[in-house]
């Protein structure tokens, strides 16, 4: 945690300012429900924001992607994300595990994580923030609401 904070002070050399080239913004979407993945893509289109969306279906894959392990070793094909959209409730390795792993990794702990989950449980919210989540968003039921949510993401990136 401390190392991570020092790194933040030292500069955000690897973070590209997304506001300048929104099209280049890479988002790693960690989501086990393919419907949600699809809906998010659709909402992005509907909202008129363009992201380089990379979707993985569970925590294992997310960690593998971030480490550049296995299939994800080619950074040209699988660039490091500017933002991680993280579901919490996933089989095997949960979102919390991913958050905890991220915090322990000096090179990656600066990547902002936005939790996007169906849980609005207070305990989940608190735990996610404690593990370094940048923001905590609850999946809306209505598609329109999802579109509205997607529209707020560029602002979140700008704050980061």
């Amino acid at each position, binding site marked *: 945690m401390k190392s991570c904070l020092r790194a933040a002070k030292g500069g955000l050399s690897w973070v590209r300012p997304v506001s300048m080239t929104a099209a280049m913004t890479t988002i790693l979407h960690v989501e086990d429900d393919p*419907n*949600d993945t699809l*809906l998010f893509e659709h909402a992005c289109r509907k909202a008129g924001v363009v992201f380089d969306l990379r979707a993985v279906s569970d925590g294992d894959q997310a960690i593998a992607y971030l480490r550049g392990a296995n299939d994800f070793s080619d950074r040209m094909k699988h660039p490091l994300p500017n933002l991680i959209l993280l579901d919490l409730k996933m089989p095997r390795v949960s979102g919390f595990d991913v958050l905890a792993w991220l915090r322990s990794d000096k090179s990656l702990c600066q990547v902002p994580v936005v939790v996007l989950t*169906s*849980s609005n449980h207070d305990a989940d919210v608190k735990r996610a923030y404690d593990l370094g989540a940048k923001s905590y968003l609850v*999946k809306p*039921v*209505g*598609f329109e609401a*999802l579109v509205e949510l997607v529209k707020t993401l560029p602002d979140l990136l700008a704050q980061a």
Partner: protein
Amino acid sequence: MGEETQASRGTDTADAASPWAARHGLGATSRRWFPLAVLVTGIGLTLLAAYYASRTIQLRTRAQFETAALRARTSIRTRFEVYDALLHGAAGFIAVEGNVTRDRFKSYVARLGIENNYPGLQGIGFAPRVPAPEKDNLIAAMKQQGAENFRVWPEGERADYYPITCLEPLNGRNEVAYGYDMLSEPVRREAMQRARDTGETAASGAVTLVQEIASSQQPGFLIYLPVYRSGVAPATVTEKRVALQGFVFVVFRAGELFASLFEDEGMGAELEIFDGSTTNFANRLFRSPKAVERAGPFHHTFEEITALDVCGRTWTTRFSAQPEFERTWIVLSLLGGGVFLSLVMFYLTRAEGRTRRAAERAAERLKISELALRESEERLRRYATELEHRVAERTANLAQSIQSLEGVLYHVAHDLRAPLRSMASFTQILLDEYGDRFDERGRDYTQRISNAAQRMDGLVQDLLAYGRLAHTAVPVSSLSLETEVTTVLGLFSEEIEARRATVDVCSPLPAVKANAAVLDQVLSNLISNALKFVPPETPPHVRICAEETTSRMEIPAAKANGVPSLDNRLSALDGKFVRFWVEDNGIGIDPEYHERIFRMFERLHGVGSYPGTGIGLAIVRKGVERMGGRVGVESTPGSGSRFWVELPAA
């Protein structure tokens, strides 16, 4: 004496029994033997006392007996000394007279006063020695003196005759003896010859007196004293035989003699006098009438046999006696009294023992029942405690079950939402992007799918909210009710505007102790309902007011059901609290449903007319209860509803 000792001892022992028994830890068995011990001791002491008394009496009787015997012997001896003197006197008189005449002798004897001074004496007489040649002279002389019928008898030729010539007092009995030659009879002869040869008085053996003419004969005897011619007894036997002039003699009827001798004395003894040195019945001279009746089992005969020399003849006296009846009676009454007292003591101690044992048993029973009572109480207390524990345990289990159930419910609801989202969203996308390819009906159906999904999500969300309320902590703090109301109303601004509703808030609203999120949820649901349950075409009118108070609201519906509501039982409102209410001009609620509407999934209207999940008011109640408050409704159908909430004052 014996009785007293016995009685006092018995009493002491009885009194001392219980402390003694208590000190020595004696059981009931020892105490049961105690009366018997008293009885045995009492009878033992009685026997001892009786033995000593009997022995004492015996010794005393023996002493008295010996005294009596001594006195009797002395009396006899003294009396015979008197007769001895009498005979010597008579002998002297005859010696002086030479030839004594009947008249002279009579006057001599008359002066003696025989009957008064010599009791028991049958007679005193004189028998001269008459050689055979002088026999006829004597008879003649006697006839001359007036004895016409005088004769010497028994007949027979003898060298010397000794006929009785004088015998006084002269009476019928003695008259028979006149002329009787006593030497002719062996027993008398022996005494007479002994007297002649010794010059002393000599008593004869027992004889039947010639005077015994009546039917009641009794033994008799005689005492002879020789009279010599010189007046003085010669030195030798031969001289004495030559000088013998005759005999003076006294005659006794033994019975009369000894009766007179012992007539004054209560001897306490039986006296028998035998002639000779043996107690031969045939030789018995005298037997005293029984001095003492033989009586009682303790008679013991004392006996003293003594030889007595009476005028040269040996007599044998036998004294015999038994304890006097009175003394025997003392022993008997001592025995009887002692035994009686022992029995009384036995009975008393036994009765006392029984009473004591009965009391002890009663005390024991009482103690046992007290113990049993205490045990029962203890058991009851244990049961009560156990029951409390069990109730607490069950309650805890139940609470845990409810909590885990709510947890499950929460997770289930949570997972239900994901597919719902997809359904709602894809339907929406379908409508948005492909709506123009549907006809009117197609679009309607698609819209219905979307609506149903949305409604189901609402349901799930409400369930989640309810579940969260049930199983998460609800910390409370001081909040401005007004701020919260304003915040929540802000969320409804669009709807208020759309429904052309008016909302009045009685500012300022007081502060309350509550959880902000929960309070917002409660307010949100109540306001939502107030806006919702209004007839179509009627602009809703909502009024939110509050007051600080100490008197609590009644919940009529609960009373109507006869069952106290959970609110009434569980609410922890004490002292000051805040009551606020949300009033509407809506359709109102039948009092029958005032309690039911707060339950989960209770709906009074179809989804078509007033959409809702049926969970909203359950959430309200749960939320209010978690914050330590109560909620209720006052309403009549058609004239609006007034939901009230009581919360602790800040």
